């Protein structure tokens, strides 16, 4: 363990953080909408120095065999080497796959996108929604930043039109059929205390983390634990903290 990690752990054991925040404090959150002209919807979200752009693109393709009348949603994440000295070029690694899949589950399980409204011709043609997460600068808590950016981008997406087997990206009339605002909150455990919105330095020192996706009605719709083990009572504490913070973050989406 290096000195910085030990320093963060020592602070954490007293409930303190090296940037002066309290356990439940978020960094300054900045949300910009429609930042990418060619995308159907997009958002740039910053939590302090962590910055993510999410773009939504749409196309027409074949539905999955088991859901012939339902649109298709896909989420990918790219930990671009521009964002951190630790990111490398090459095929997606474990971290980016987990990031994409956790954000995916939060959105998919909340049934936020009304996929049945995206059917064009049953069994043949449906709209496909591609949500791509691009990390611009990595300073921790990427799951929460990406999830918030994805939900914001989807809420501001406009559908292209489909005429005579051609997608017209110039003519966007209708909004993408979305309904809820699922919020993903990651709670980290450092030295036995719980923190939200961890920085990269804090993530290097943390013991474990749990990401919880919470729907508008307060129900949870996705959970992912990472790192070391936890007791049942710790899990409940994490859920309570995540539920509390989700209410605050949901107000930021419009």
């Amino acid at each position, binding site marked *: 363990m290096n000195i910085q990690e030990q320093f963060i752990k020592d602070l954490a054991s007293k409930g303190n953080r090296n940037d002066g925040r309290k356990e439940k404090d978020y960094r300054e959150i900045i949300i910009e909408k429609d930042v990418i002209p060619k995308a159907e919807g997009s958002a740039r979200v910053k939590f302090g120095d962590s910055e993510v752009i999410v773009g939504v693109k749409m196309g027409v393709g074949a539905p999955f065999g088991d859901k012939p009348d339902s649109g298709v949603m896909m989420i990918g994440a790219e930990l671009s080497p521009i964002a951190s000295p630790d990111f490398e070029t090459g095929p*997606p690694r*474990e971290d980016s*796959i*987990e990031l*994409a*899949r956790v954000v995916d*589950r939060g959105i*998919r*399980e*909340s049934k936020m996108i009304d996929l049945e409204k995206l059917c064009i011709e049953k069994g043949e043609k449906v709209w496909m929604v591609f949500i791509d997460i691009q990390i611009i600068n990595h300073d921790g808590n990427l799951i929460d930043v990406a999830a918030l950016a994805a939900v914001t981008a989807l809420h501001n997406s406009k559908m292209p039109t489909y005429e005579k087997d051609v997608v017209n990206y110039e003519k966007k009339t209708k909004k993408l059929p979305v309904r809820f605002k699922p919020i993903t909150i990651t709670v980290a455990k450092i030295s036995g205390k719980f923190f939200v919105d961890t920085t990269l330095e804090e993530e290097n020192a943390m013991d474990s983390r*749990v990401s919880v996706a919470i*729907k508008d009605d*307060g*129900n*949870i*719709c*996705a*959970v*992912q*634990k*990472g*790192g*070391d*083990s*936890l*007791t*049942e009572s710790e*899990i*409940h504490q994490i*859920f*309570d903290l995540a*539920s509390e913070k989700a209410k605050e973050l949901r107000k930021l989406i419009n």
Partner: protein
Amino acid sequence: MVKREDGRKPDEMRPIEIKAGVIKNADGSAMVKFGKTIAIAAVYGPRAMHPRRMQEPDRTVLRCRYSMVPFSTTDRCRPGPSRRSTEISKVTREALEPALFLDEIPKTVIDVFIDVIAADAGTRTTGINAASVALADAGIPMRDLVASVAAGKIGKEVMVDLAGKEEEETSCDVPIAYMPRSKQVTLLQMDGDIPVKDFNDVLKMATKSCEQIYKKQKEALGERWIK
């Protein structure tokens, strides 16, 4: 009480079969069956880490690879890693790591390979059960065995070890892994839709079932090693 597809009670798992020492070449191995789901795990190591740039100067690296073989599912699944299998390999590693003493032998690796040869729901949990027994079978010092199962809710009823069509009917699916001695949860995932207050019941049922699996794991190791 709701009748389940295969006539089980809500808190009843599928028939479980565990066998340690199924692959001669491996340092440790195990086969675990949960109904029609079958996973085989092999452990190699601790051995020198290659490539050497992946060595850790002060600890053993645990490397897990979960994979479904092409004929394990109704529709043939493509061989090689997928996004799903990469994620499961990661959470499997994190489910097993807390049970191991990884800071004892530097520059080495413990490889855990899990092949799901027949899939009928619960493949990641069955794989973790097999891997845990295989690690013990390899004689690797452990704090505890790791037992794993999923619980979920169908309608108002909490059920354990979801199988077959049940997985599609559930309002939530919570796979966990658990170390019974220290009561630590080492794997926790969930998808679905559930009020926070109901989560406790699901977690309780899953941990209780893990204690039963734990017994069977120990029996299997006993059969292999206690003459």
